[in-house]
């Protein structure tokens, strides 16, 4: 690899014995970028699915069906009260082995990671959205009903937009946790960042250097996420209104 950056890291290796091979070796760089792409893809998919699950769960919790409410509460308890790594391993080995296709498994490691982390973050999102919806003054519901809004319309046009603004900081927290939790997919061999880094350091024997790179990468990823969420929060701010 050429360029001034590769040159700098080559100099670090030659003079100080710090081997940042992801910047100097094309093969390692490639492996690391695949890891980065996998982590980002995994995180984004899980964010989308977990937010959908959260909205759906909060909607059912505010609904009239006792069965639906009990089911949502059971789901939240099940995923909040068990360790995420155990959940992932359970899905991959216990459920995955039941669903084996003819040749290869129906759902691979990446698929199970998406399912497992989405359900986990979704359970927390249910509680987050519920807290937001419940913080909307009941007078808003009365006003919407007085105008003939149905329950779904009240939720969609009044409760969800107002509740979202209230619970956005909590949602940001949960999504940050989700990004970091994706490293658990390492345990079932999904080639995300931690997996890629460990592959590199076990061959190149540069554990400390790869740790620096790994930590810096996560700091950057989470910083970007938080920046986007804060911009969103600012964009949603209502002139003259404090919730």
């Amino acid at each position, binding site marked *: 690899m050429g360029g001034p950056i590769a040159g700098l890291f080559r100099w670090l290796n030659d003079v100080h014995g710090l081997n940042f091979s992801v910047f100097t070796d094309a093969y390692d760089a490639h492996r690391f970028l695949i890891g980065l792409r996998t982590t980002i893809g995994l995180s984004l998919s899980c964010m989308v699915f977990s937010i959908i699950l959260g909205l759906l769960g909060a909607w059912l919790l505010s609904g009239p069906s006792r069965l639906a409410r009990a089911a949502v509460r059971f789901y939240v308890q099940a995923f909040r009260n068990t360790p995420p790594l155990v959940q992932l391993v359970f899905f991959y080995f216990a459920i995955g082995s039941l669903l084996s296709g003819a040749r290869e498994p129906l759902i691979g490691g990446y698929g199970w990671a998406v399912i497992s982390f989405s359900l986990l973050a979704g359970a927390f999102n249910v509680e987050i959205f519920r807290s937001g919806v419940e913080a909307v003054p009941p007078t808003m519901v*009365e006003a919407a009903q007085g105008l*003939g809004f149905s329950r779904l319309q009240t939720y969609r046009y009044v409760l969800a937009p107002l509740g979202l603004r209230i619970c956005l900081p909590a949602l940001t927290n949960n999504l940050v946790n989700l990004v970091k939790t994706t490293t658990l997919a390492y345990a079932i061999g999904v080639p995300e960042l931690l997996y890629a880094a460990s592959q590199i350091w076990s061959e190149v024997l540069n554990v400390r250097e790869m740790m620096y790179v790994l930590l810096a990468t996560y700091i950057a990823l989470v910083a970007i996420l938080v920046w986007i969420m804060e911009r969103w929060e600012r964009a949603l701010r209502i002139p003259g*209104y404090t919730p």
Partner: protein
Amino acid sequence: MRDVEKSFGAVPVLRGVSLTVHRGETVCIIGPSGSGKSTLLRCINGLVPITAGSITVAGREVNDPKLDPLALRRDVGIVFQQYNLFPHRTALQNIMMAPVHVLGQDRASVETRARALLAKVRLTDKADGFPGELSGGQQQRVAIARALAMNPKVMLFDEVTAALDPETKKEVLVTIQELAGEGMTCILVTHEMGFARRVADQVFFTDGGVLVEEGPPEQVLDAPREARTRDFLDKIL
């Protein structure tokens, strides 16, 4: 409205209220706090289900189990003491939401009507203001326009001036008075005795969940027959 009763748990709030409001009339319901005035109003559009009795609004039985409560509320507009505008939408959007989403009307024609309603309540220049940027009186007039946008047959006003200072009170009362003058059926829960005297066709005095006295304002307010009405009026005037 016949023999209407309402209890919250074991607490009776309305204990057999019967009253009739004719089309195009403006009536005021007065009475001490906790006498069930606001509950009575919310029974009319089904926001509060009644325990016993019957209410008929524009040919609809409110407590008929087959009634579509949403259809009823399209015919009955309600304005609240605390305005209850949707804070995340502008004044214009607040007025447009229900006709667009509930009635499924065409956005462009709703906007034309919404702007006309804003002009009617003299807030043309506030169309793009958010509720948090408007004064209490302005918010309340937007709330009236929002209810009117559904073309209701009846308008309910629940102490709509109670949270306003005397100056802004007037702009809201003038708006309601104009509405009454145009023949809208208006039912107000209010403490504005001067307004009741000027505008109301009938005044109902409620106390302890029953209708104590009813009649034209000059009779109920100036020459009450019942001791309880006299007591109440003596206290507030």
